[in-house]
């Protein structure tokens, strides 16, 4: 009988491990990034970035180990005694540096060349169709260079997945052994490995962590806007003290008084009319 590992493609295996490992580690990295942001340190540059990367290493090692173990159990019926995360993470990282590093270069080149070619094609089209509207031109040009760039990127990702999957297979074949458990037991095993077994304890400790982080968060959080946007400053509403112009003021007052007099006269006239009417009756 063929080893179950032989039946799964390297790309599928690597995808199953790395995709879930990414999402497993993500929330923990988010916590670190958020605390950095609340302390007004940018996690995408300088010391903030270094902190985030350093903290990410153990998180990723743990996440890769956990998801690889569950994938082995669920899909391959294999069990690994001993650590998993460190060796897989290490191989994945080296391969990533090599493949995705050169991929970065290749995609960059494709984008640069693609943009030039796209611009040339657009110029050609404009030669015999000068009225090419701008909205159509933008989308056409965008498609012309993003499609080749996306294909190149996809190829490099597939190469990385293929190589990583090959290493993962080697690893599980050399350090794993077939699990003797039934499907039912295996399902329990891998699900309990990913989700803590004692729900009450978990929910209580989860709530505890949330409360603690919330307190830390509100303490760090600045009370007023931390980054007034340079383009849209808060308009300083000036209590403009209007210069007093005596002549105008007098004229205005006189005009107002005249109006008031006219209104008064009109009212009196009306009143006298009414009294006359009543007398007439």
């Amino acid at each position, binding site marked *: 009988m063929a080893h179950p590992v032989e039946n799964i493609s390297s790309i599928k295996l690597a995808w199953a491990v790395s995709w*879930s490992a990414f*999402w497993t580690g*993500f*929330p923990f990295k*988010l*916590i670190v*990034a*958020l605390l950095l*942001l*609340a302390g007004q340190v940018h996690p995408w540059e300088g010391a903030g970035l270094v902190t985030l990367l350093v903290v990410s290493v153990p998180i990723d090692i743990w996440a890769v180990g956990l998801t690889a173990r569950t994938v082995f159990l669920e899909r391959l019926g294999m069990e690994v005694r001993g650590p998993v995360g460190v060796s897989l993470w290490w191989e994945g990282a080296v391969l990533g540096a090599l493949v995705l590093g050169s991929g970065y270069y290749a995609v960059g080149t494709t984008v640069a060349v693609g943009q030039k070619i796209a611009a040339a094609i657009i110029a050609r089209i404009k030669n015999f169709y000068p009225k090419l*509207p*701008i*909205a*159509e031109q*933008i*989308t056409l040009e*965008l*498609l012309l260079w*993003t499609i080749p760039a996306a294909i190149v990127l996809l190829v490099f990702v597939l190469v990385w997945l293929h190589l990583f999957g090959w290493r993962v297979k080697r690893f599980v074949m050399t350090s794993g052994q077939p699990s003797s458990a039934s*499907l*039912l037991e295996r*399902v329990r095993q891998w*699900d309990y490995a990913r*989700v*803590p077994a004692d*729900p009450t304890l*978990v*929910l209580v400790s*989860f709530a505890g962590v*949330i409360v603690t982080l919330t307190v830390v*968060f509100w303490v760090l*959080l600045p*009370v*007023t*806007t*931390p*980054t*007034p*946007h340079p*383009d*849209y400053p*808060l*308009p300083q509403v000036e209590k403009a003290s209007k210069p007093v112009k005596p002549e105008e003021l007098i004229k205005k007052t006189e005009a107002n008084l005249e109006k008031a007099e006219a209104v008064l006269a009109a009212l009196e006239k009306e009143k006298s009319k009414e009294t006359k009417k009543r007398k007439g009756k």
Partner: protein
Amino acid sequence: MNAVFQKVYDFVDERIDLKTLEAKMMNEPIKGGSRWAYVFGSCLLFIFIMQAITGMLLMFYYIPSADHAYASTQYIIHEVDYGWFILSYHFWGSSAMVVMVFAHMSQVFLWGAYKKPREMIWLVGLVLFVIVMAFGFTGYLLPWDQRAYWATTVGVEIMDKTPLVGDFLARFLKGGPTPGQMTLSRFFVIHVMILPAALMGLAGLHLFFFRSAGPAGPFRGTPEELKAKTDFFFPRQVWKDIVAIAAVFMAICALAFIEPVQLLEQATPDPGDYHPEPEWYFLFLFQMLRWKIFSGEFGEVLGAVAIPGMFLLLLAALPFIDRNPERNIFKRPIALLSWTVVMIGILVLTVSAILNREFLE
């Protein structure tokens, strides 16, 4: 402590049969076991609750009048303690809601969960989708700055083009010849009363239908495998939901820090050199309308009303057109291809709209 808790529990249980209720809520069996793919609906509920909470906090200070809306929003951002954070959370929460609604729709589409017997869940879901988009549209006007005012002006003009009902709809929303106090009042009422009430009611119906039909479960695997993996809602699915919700919460907070809300100048009926633009999740439609075929009287109706309307109708008819019980997405090539084309189309048009900014004189 535990004894007190037990006493309270027993007291309530004796009166409303809490144990049965709890068992019904938590012991829902999930065919094929818990999955991360099922977290999106719960995330949507969470985001909505947080929008309601932050929205109520904002209403403590916001004044829905053309004279004071702008100033009161500035006051929230610059003076109220943590006001900038609450407003920015609410703002980014609305984007998260739209992203999450697309994710949830994609999940149920790709899993074939709209098929018999879940057609009614899908139909109510579509109405919820329209409500989420309407929340975005009406909320955008409330700060009453140039961006708000002009996006609404353009949006209502587009609505005006709808045959038969367009004129009424536009007049109803505007409440006058030009956007003004009446428009603000109406958008405010729709945003804080009508839509929340509608969403709460329909989300309840959505969940009721969902619980009646039961979760669809994975789209592949032998019956015995699915049975072996079947699990209850509590604790493992609850755990996954909570982790996903925590991640969503943190992502919204992070965005609120990185890009807090800032207002443009107060709205005036003169755009100056400001180019109206809707919120980012409407940009793809906005950009499509710039195409030549969608210019002119007929083209505008086609692009702004007919095509989006037909698309929604097509989605509504989907469970009744696609009656093949096959749920595996890798065995439904047309479904997979359509989904990919729609997603890439939205992405490309959104990026095009951003690139298009440079060409506006």
